[in-house]
């Protein structure tokens, strides 16, 4: 196998053109390595070399019309160099440089299918924009950390160029993309959990294997103005269905919901059951009104407390449902009942 070829993208500062005052600078093309590429070539020990380096001022590249104007030229310059891998940055915590690196990588990998890697500090705003579009090495915050960041970037670039599979993010030192794969670890979960607990007791650093979730708050709906004028609906997550489960709603991790008319003469245990797979359904199977309080709602209607009650209910099994599916089902239910003029809902959850 001959020497592998890398193409680098850097900004005006790392190309030695100048600092912020030169950020408007247009495209510069250098044959061979320039800036960080020189350091990486040393790390590759002859296995790969930088065949070409492209540089732009950060302000120039971030302006959409400039980018559009040089896009084709960039692609031509890449194609001509026939690189095995594209390396952009590292951009550390610099936002505009980060966006430029991400955008360049996205363009090349989408159009030419060449693997790309860049490097950023985890809080660089460009990380969120390009995490799934290019590989991002877990780099230091500022260029002062170049010495520790370059080996990670160089190693990842070499792996990509060789088309070798990546190790997990914490091993190969890149920012996790969100993808997670079931694999066999070196140690049992029992070994790992005891080890982690002891480190925590001893105030030593440890890394959790499942990161804490980021809370997503749902704003409360504004209050109802005049309940006596509006139509109410009934929904349950408790798995109530007509016997036989006509819509085949799954009792666990449901992916659908059903809509069922209520006829008071048949709204009883002979005709309805819960297919929910996560709680003891004995009580609700004995009386469906313990999930769908239809007669109680009619009582409120008779007394003029509410306008009316829709004579049907929506139902699914709320168990083992991931948030994504929950959102999807919720949105579909809301759309359906709004179309029928329902403005408020009594919803039971088990």
């Amino acid at each position, binding site marked *: 196998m001959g020497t592998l070829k890398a193409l680098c993208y850097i900004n005006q500062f790392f190309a030695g053109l100048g600092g912020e005052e030169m950020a408007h600078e247009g495209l510069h093309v250098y044959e061979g390595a320039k800036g960080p590429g020189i350091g990486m070539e040393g790390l590759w020990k002859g296995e790969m070399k930088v065949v070409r380096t492209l540089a732009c001022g950060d302000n120039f590249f971030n302006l959409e019309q400039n980018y559009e104007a040089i896009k084709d030229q960039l692609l031509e310059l890449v194609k001509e160099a026939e690189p095995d891998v594209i390396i952009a940055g590292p951009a550390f915590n610099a936002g505009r440089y980060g966006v430029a690196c991400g955008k360049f990588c996205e363009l090349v990998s989408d159009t030419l299918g060449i693997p790309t890697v860049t490097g950023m500090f985890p809080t660089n705003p460009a990380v969120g924009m390009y995490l799934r579009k290019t590989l991002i090495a877990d780099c230091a915050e500022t260029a002062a950390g170049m010495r520790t960041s370059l080996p990670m970037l160089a190693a990842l670039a070499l792996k990509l160029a060789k088309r070798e599979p*990546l190790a*997990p*993010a*914490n091993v190969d030192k890149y920012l*996790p*993309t*969100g*993808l*997670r*794969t*079931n*694999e*066999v*670890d*070196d*140690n*049992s*979960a*029992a*070994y*790992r*959990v*005891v080890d*982690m*607990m*002891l480190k*925590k*007791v*001893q105030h030593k650093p*440890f890394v*959790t*294997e*499942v*990161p*804490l*979730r980021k809370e997503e708050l749902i704003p409360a709906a504004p209050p109802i103005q005049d309940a006596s004028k509006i139509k109410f609906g009934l929904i349950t997550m408790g*798995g109530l269905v007509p016997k036989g*489960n006509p819509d*085949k709603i*799954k*009792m*666990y*991790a449901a992916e659908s919901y059903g809509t069922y008319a209520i006829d008071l003469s048949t709204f009883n245990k002979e005709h309805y*059951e*819960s*297919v*929910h*797979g*996560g*709680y*003891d*359904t*004995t009580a609700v*199977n004995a009386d469906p009104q313990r999930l769908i309080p239809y007669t109680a709602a009619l009582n409120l209607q008779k007394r003029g407390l509410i306008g009316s009650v829709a004579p049907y209910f929506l139902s699914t099994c709320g*168990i*083992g449902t*991931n*948030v*994504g*599916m929950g959102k999807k089902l919720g949105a579909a239910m809301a759309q359906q009942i709004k179309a029928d003029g329902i403005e408020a809902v009594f919803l039971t959850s088990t």
Partner: protein
Amino acid sequence: MAMRLTRRYYPVTELKEGAACAYEAGVLTVNYDELKEVAKPYGKNIEKLWFEVCRPNENARIIHVLDTIQPMYKAEAPQDWGGKEYPGILNHPHTAGNGVTNLLEGFAVMECAALPWDESNASSGLLYPREAIIQTKGFYKHYTPFADTINLICNFEVMADKSSEEYDNDIRKSAMAIAQHLAKLTAEQEPAREEVFDNTPVEGLPNVALVWMCQNQGVYANTLLYGLPIYDIVPTLLEPNEMLDGAVVGGNYVWPTYKIPSYIHANGPNILELYRRHGVDLNFKGVIFARSHQPSNWHKDRCGQLIAKIAAQLDCQGLIMQWEGGGNAAIDGMLVVQNAERRGISSALLTFEFGGKDGTEGQLLVDDVPEADAVVSTGSWERVVHLEAVDVAYGGPVLRLEKERGGLFPDAREAIDFETNVHMYMGGNQSGYSRITAHAY
């Protein structure tokens, strides 16, 4: 006072049929007629019992798996009060954990049965036995502790029109009798090795407790402590040695992936790991045993509070949280972690994760608390499971799937895909036995 238990190990390297059951130098000889006689007094509602053997390295699948038992025989116990193996099942509910216990090593007694799916046996959507599968070759052998053991499979066919309580009871006791009979063959023989379990504390090391919460939601979804289901149990403190001697027995057949079989209750990976580090890095103070799936918020609060209180009472600095079950149980476990952390007890937990087909969909955990910052992943539940075709199926000829959609019964030997690992026996890895985890890319 701490307990002292000597475990004597008798490896089983070969199993063969013979004129009478016997154990000699690693060879276990079984006589099936003899085993049927042993089981008979407990099998009033059993129509038929027959046996199969699944050996390591077979390209096999075992289906309809219920409980799996570590065969043990109590060779010596304190006079007057000492309990026997699996106390309270076939014998008195006397305190286990002291004395000498003989174990057949590398060998398991496994119950398999296609329990009826009719209404009388499944009073609610939850309480029906779901298909439970063990695949012994390929990637999915890591989803079971029983790919490398010699498994004596006890196949049960139950009589019609009896109650689920009767089926559950008879199958458990019959299989226990068989396991006990085989383990007893080692009496008076020299073990291959022995190990002493004694958690007498050592000065200057952090105190650690293991919280072990188990499912108990009705027949086919129960866990037994000293022979009884733990419906109304108040969190209670067990010596780890009581667990090693089988004080806890699993009876959960409704969620195979979450199932903790008796074999694992008696060989708890977290218990063995805490023991390994006992006196070196920590003092193993005990197992706080409780019911998961607490039925209301109020019960969940009460349970989480009591567990944290017991840990504090033991002067614990560290705690491991282990639960059996899905979302409902996760909420209980997270509350324990929260309560313990609020009392300054450093807690770590094990959990399966979600994340959809590649880890990016929805949340990873069904429930969490901000205090849960030390989490070990036992793998994602939601990845597609692809089982290759096998040479032989044990436990029955066809799988039983999708009851709620009317049932699906494919050939048990064919390749099959599942959307999740729900049918993989112990696939959730909640006891921490396996090296399966989810790696972030």
